[in-house]
């Protein structure tokens, strides 16, 4: 059970407590940022069990890299960068694996799971988004995930992805075009 006090504790205090091996403090970090990580990982990999594993890996990597976190950037940005890197690595790994053993396209690499408690309309909306995202090129999908699912500005997206703002803007425009074409077919 999370200590009552941690729910209002600032992120720097949580980091310090986690560095001292405080399980509850790190648990609070996971609680605060799990949805953010889920949007990146599941937006990029699809709603599958593999995404859960990568999500766990993100927080495990965060725990061991906390000593290197100097607090210059926001903790959310730091976590987001870890999530993006691990997700892109996983996509590369899968592409290599599937190119060796199969001729299937990207969209067939993932399984979709839609929560049972959702209404039909909500399920349909989730399915459309999942299918559209998985049909997109990786470089556009990551931009769409940051912008559409995370709600990041162009500047924030550029910072997280280590890209120039101009590149983000041009990819955003091309991603929109690709998304429009994909959605026409769905």
């Amino acid at each position, binding site marked *: 059970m999370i200590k009552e006090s941690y729910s209002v504790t600032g992120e720097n205090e949580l980091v310090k407590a986690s560095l001292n091996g405080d399980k509850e403090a790190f648990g609070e970090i996971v609680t605060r940022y799990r949805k953010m990580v889920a949007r990146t990982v599941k937006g990029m990999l699809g709603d599958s069990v593999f995404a859960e594993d990568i999500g766990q890996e993100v927080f495990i990597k965060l725990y*061991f890299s906390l000593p290197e976190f100097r607090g210059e950037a926001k903790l959310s940005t730091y976590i987001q960068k870890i999530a993006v890197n691990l997700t892109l690595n996983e996509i590369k790994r899968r592409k290599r694996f599937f190119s060796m053993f199969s001729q299937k396209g990207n969209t067939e690499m993932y399984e979709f799971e839609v929560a049972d408690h959702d209404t039909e309309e909500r399920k349909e909306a989730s399915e459309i988004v999942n299918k559209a995202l998985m049909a997109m090129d990786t470089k556009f999908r990551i931009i769409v995930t940051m912008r559409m699912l995370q709600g990041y500005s162009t500047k924030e997206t550029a910072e997280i992805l280590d890209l120039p703002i101009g590149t983000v803007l041009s990819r955003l425009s091309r991603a929109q075009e690709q998304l429009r074409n994909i959605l026409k077919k769905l």
Partner: protein
Amino acid sequence: MDTSETKKLLISSLNTDADPIEASRRLEEEGISFDFSKGFKDKILHKLFSAGLTINREVEFMKSMNFAFYRIALTGVAAIVVLLISIFLMEGSLSFNSFLGISDSYDESIVCLLTGN
């Protein structure tokens, strides 16, 4: 919201002049939200704090391997530099013959050296 409206919302959320926070909030309202399964946090905490010692040891091992590699690589580079400087000081050049230590030898003397005559 029907399918066509969802599609329009998705496309318009990527407009450069659209407010990304507002767009993502509207999508979440339409059921386009992501989260991990129940017990996600417990699994992480279990891995870190129950099996933490093993993971910690693995991480420490990798860190020391990394450190050792850099130390060895740096020592190697330093040795090569010292070798190059000493060759240059002794032979006066860094030609291939200087490296082989035969810069002062004539072809005939090398033949004699190799044949023993």
